[in-house]
């Protein structure tokens, strides 16, 4: 593989398609209006001339993109030489990329739809702290892609073994059994169609998707605002009885749920987990086929999560976080980055089988604690109050705004209006009860387990997320407390691993949090 390689000729149409896609959609959007207008008005001549113009436009776009793709094809080349991957690409700005194999975290194979038509694949090389598309080699023939992957892994395994035997012998089960590395990958799990369907319909992302869809639809309505169509639609909607409106909303929710469920099924089609010694290999996808490999000793955190529905039927999802060495940036105490870089290694597993699966696939994590300590009783009240405060605050804000609006609009005051419509009190009572219940369940759902080499944190009101972090992967340990927590002698424990923040846990006993700090720095 040491000589320079070109990518497959399929690169030209695939990249041309990628470039032209956005432009074609834009062109269509802008021309559809006048076209349909002409047809509606029975004006054939402008319709034809418009059609010719649009056809010309499409052709021009395709031609430009093809030309661009061709030049880009001439410029792109790669080679694997002396334990380094070289990638050269770029028309105007030339990029010469050198990636030492030892820095490579994972090599993924992605086949997008146009690539599948030509049976080629993109090899995506992930390095620690790498950014952007620099490590991508698009459109390799599948045999070439597979050869490159195994060549990289072959070099990598060699160096890893040498390093590990030199510095830290017998740190993990994997390094103790080097034979396993060369062993053929054996399939741990291949998802049957029945489970695929359940994965789709039980995902809690579906509800989120409904909200996104609602946002999108309201956007479309804004575009049509002021037109006849909008007026008509608004009139019909307002004319409908309440039950019909409710039914419409329900139908809408069901449809959006079904669409998103199908999306998840397409993504997870043929989900296969393979145990390949030092690596976990995952294949999935119906339209876009993905092959992902995760190095076991780079795993920083294992998460077992089940949403409300999955918890009810006794299933969970297992994901892992791998090291992403982003040394630059802020203190790593960011709040939202605890979901960055999650890779699913099993989308739908019986909760009772989780332990076995982890023991077989990730033996390093087999010793994780299973018995959790509940939070102190004082945390219970705080949990309920935390949820209540936000709900009551938003209720108060809503009430005040409505009262103000009604005050300035004239007519009845808000209190009169409220007394006239006693059903409105439901809008006060239900969210409050809901918040109290959520706070109570959130308290019950939380738990902490610390053993010599692991910390496990459990949380979730209606669903359940368990996070397992090995002690030697913790980079920074933090115990923080706000004034209210200090009054009750409570604290929050959080921290970072090589994969950013792990799941934080609020309101543990202050002494426990301090023990956690002490525990995190123990050397062996």
């Amino acid at each position, binding site marked *: 593989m040491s000589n320079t390689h070109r990518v497959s000729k399929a690169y030209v149409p695939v990249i041309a398609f990628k470039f032209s896609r956005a432009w074609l959609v834009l062109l269509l959007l802008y021309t559809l209006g006048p076209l349909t207008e002409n047809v509606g008005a029975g004006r054939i001549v402008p319709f034809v001339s418009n059609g010719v113009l649009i056809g010309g436009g499409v052709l021009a776009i395709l031609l430009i993109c093809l030309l661009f793709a061709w030049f880009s094809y001439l410029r792109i080349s790669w080679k694997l030489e002396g334990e380094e991957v070289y990638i050269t690409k770029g028309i105007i700005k030339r990029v010469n990329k050198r990636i030492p194999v030892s820095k490579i975290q994972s090599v993924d194979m992605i086949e997008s739809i146009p690539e599948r038509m030509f049976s080629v694949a993109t090899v995506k090389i992930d390095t*620690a702290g790498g950014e952007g598309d620099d490590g991508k080699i698009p459109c390799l023939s599948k045999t070439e892609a597979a050869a490159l992957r195994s060549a990289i892994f072959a070099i990598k395994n060699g160096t890893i073994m040498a390093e590990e035997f030199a510095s*830290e012998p017998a740190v993990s089960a994997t390094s103790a059994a080097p034979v396993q590395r060369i062993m053929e990958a054996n399939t741990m799990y291949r998802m049957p169609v029945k489970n695929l369907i359940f994965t789709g319909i039980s995902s809690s992302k579906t509800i989120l998707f409904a909200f996104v869809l609602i946002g999108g639809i309201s956007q479309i309505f804004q575009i049509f605002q002021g037109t006849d169509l909008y007026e008509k639609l608004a009139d019909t909607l307002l004319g409908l009885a309440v039950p019909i409106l409710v039914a419409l909303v329900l139908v809408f929710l069901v449809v959006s749920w079904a669409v998103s469920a199908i999306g998840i099924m397409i993504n997870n089609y043929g989900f296969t987990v393979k145990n390949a010694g030092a690596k976990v290999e995952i294949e999935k996808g119906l339209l876009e086929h993905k092959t992902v490999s995760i190095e076991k*000793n*780079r795993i*920083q955190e294992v998460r077992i999560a089940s949403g409300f529905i999955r918890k009810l039927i006794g299933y969970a999802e297992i994901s892992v976080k791998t*090291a992403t*060495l982003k*040394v*630059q*940036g*802020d*203190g*790593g*105490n960011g709040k939202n980055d605890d979901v960055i870089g999650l890779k699913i290694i099993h989308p739908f597993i019986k909760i009772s089988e989780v332990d076995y699966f982890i023991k077989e696939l990730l033996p390093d994590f087999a010793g994780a604690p299973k018995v959790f300590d509940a939070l102190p009783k004082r945390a219970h009240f705080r949990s309920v109050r935390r949820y209540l405060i936000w709900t009551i605050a938003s209720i108060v804000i809503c009430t005040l705004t409505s009262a103000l609006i009604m005050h300035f609009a004239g007519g009845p005051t808000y209190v009169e209006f409220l007394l006239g419509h006693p059903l409105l009190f439901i809008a006060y009572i239900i969210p409050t009860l809901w918040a109290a219940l959520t706070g109570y369940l959130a308290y019950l759902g939380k738990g902490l387990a610390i053993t010599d080499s692991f910390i496990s944190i459990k949380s979730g009101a209606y669903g359940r997320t368990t996070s397992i972090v090995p002690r*030697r*992967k*913790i*980079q*920074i*340990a*933090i*115990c*923080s*407390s*706000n*004034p209210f927590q*200090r009054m009750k002698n409570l*604290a929050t424990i959080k*921290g*970072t*691993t*090589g*994969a*950013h*923040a792990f799941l934080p846990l609020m309101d543990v006993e202050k002494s426990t*949090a*301090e023990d956690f*700090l*002490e525990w*995190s*720095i123990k*050397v062996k």
Partner: protein
Amino acid sequence: MRQEPDKLLSKKMAGVWRLRGILGTLFTGILLVLPSAILTNLTAFPDIFLWIGVAVTAAIFLVFVAILPHIWWTHFKYAITDDEIIIKRGIFIVEHTVVPMIKIQYTDTSYGPILRLFKLASVKVMTAGGTEEIPGQLLAEATEMRDRITDLVKLVKENV
């Protein structure tokens, strides 16, 4: 905890924060006062907005120049032992951070124009999981601290 962090930053750091406060107050003051001052002079714009702007600027000055810098200084404590760097900081939310020496990838000292004016530097330690900073040491002390940390890190090295 076997050791509460007890070392304070250089007393000059309060001066740095004070200077930053003054610059910040100037900036917000111009934004708040200037438009309403111009409007009040040229048009019949009510001058209450001008006075509100002046009052807010004065309040910001009081808080960020007179009060907070000293409190910030008293509320940042740290300790460097052979095994760890401990930082305790915060007024309302108190954060107690522990960086094990074995996790530190590299360290550096840096100073911007304001820190340089006070002959100070800040020491940063980088781990795979993020960066922690001890701001405001005398330059010589900061360099010494950086070297000491680097020496300690050399002794114990672990993989990510």
